[in-house]
């Protein structure tokens, strides 16, 4: 293990990356907070939205529907604070993969539902056709945010950064 006094890097990426990281973290936090808040208003509707996918028994769907908004809010809060960012990003990614799979399966089975992503109770408004592809693409974009934070969880202005203290020389992360 050799310790070089200073490591000069040619690219500007290392200087920019932390701030892209903050933007990513806050962006994903906003997504979760909005998604959670819109569902938490009406937990019965949230349960119906989960049930509309017809993947879970009704009772299980209502429990998932009730728990999910609060988990989303908690994820949003963790990301906002930058606490356990990598873990929060991993959970985010896992949830988003489940969402994408759920929407894809609803699409494949020819169901006519709204994804319920931002709290609609799974019911399409009048004359509204399902928009599975945009919903999936949107979730994939969110997935990219989570992926970024999985790879580079350390961002400025975060509880993680504060806990870790000033960077030690010879960082091997």
């Amino acid at each position, binding site marked *: 293990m050799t310790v070089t006094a200073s490591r000069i890097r040619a690219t500007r990426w290392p200087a920019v990356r932390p701030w892209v990281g903050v933007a990513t973290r806050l962006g994903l936090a906003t997504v979760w907070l909005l998604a959670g808040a819109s569902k938490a208003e009406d937990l019965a509707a949230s349960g*119906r939205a989960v049930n509309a996918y017809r993947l879970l028994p009704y009772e299980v769907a209502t*429990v998932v529907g009730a728990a999910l908004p*609060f988990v989303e809010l908690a994820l949003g809060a963790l990301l906002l604070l930058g606490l356990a960012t990598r873990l929060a990003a991993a*959970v985010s990614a896992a949830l988003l993969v489940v969402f994408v799979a759920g929407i894809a399966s609803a699409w494949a089975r020819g169901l006519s539902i709204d994804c319920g992503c931002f709290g609609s109770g799974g019911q399409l*408004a009048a004359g509204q056709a399902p928009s599975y592809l945009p919903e999936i693409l949107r979730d994939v974009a969110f997935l990219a945010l989570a992926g970024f934070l999985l790879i580079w969880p350390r961002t400025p202005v975060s509880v993680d950064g504060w806990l870790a203290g000033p960077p030690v020389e010879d960082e091997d992360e």
Partner: protein
Amino acid sequence: MSSRKGQRDAARVVRQQIARERRRRRTIWASVAAVAVLVIAGLIGWGVWSGQRGGGYTAPPGATVAGTGIAHGSGPVVIDLYEDFLCPICKQFQQTSGPTVEQLVAEGKATVVFHPVAFLNRYSTTQYSTRSSAASGCAANGGKFREYAGALFDRQPPEGSAGLSDAELADIAAGVGLNRDTFASCLSDGTYKSWTKHVTEDASKAGVTGTPTVRVNGKEVADRSPEGIRAAVAAAGK
């Protein structure tokens, strides 16, 4: 290599190791705390929901045994109508196929069960779906459910609006021959709100994900035109 430099290096390595170890421990604790936060959040949601659903409900007179809709007629074939008073396609359905359903009931071929579900609360600013459904319960209490439901569709407010006010709902009740004061107090007491919840939950449990949903003897009817309904009832009656 001097021994002093060696000592300095060794001390630095030890310092770094201690710092790394401390960071590792903090990361672990942060992760444990985060997982706890997520789990507790989920449990809170479950708890809030359990509190909200609260079991009891009062079904209005004329409701089915299960209390999930208002029945009319005594024909052998059961037509279930799942509708939200805010849903424009439901209004359309009532206008085009409503008379046919009435006729089938009058001919003694079918019993119609109307389920006033509240699916579209988020498409009005005042929970109009719940309020109108509960209002229809008050109308059933006065024995005028069908007249009132028809009048609600005639006066249907647009999606995204505030919907009809409680006073307007009471005016409509008076218009179909109900006692305005009795109706207004039934509405303001929220007498049938728990029933609306029950009807809505039951519909969801039954796999109804949109309105209108029409089922004939439990089977969903895709063609909701008068002919489609008639054909489905004829097929089910055989």
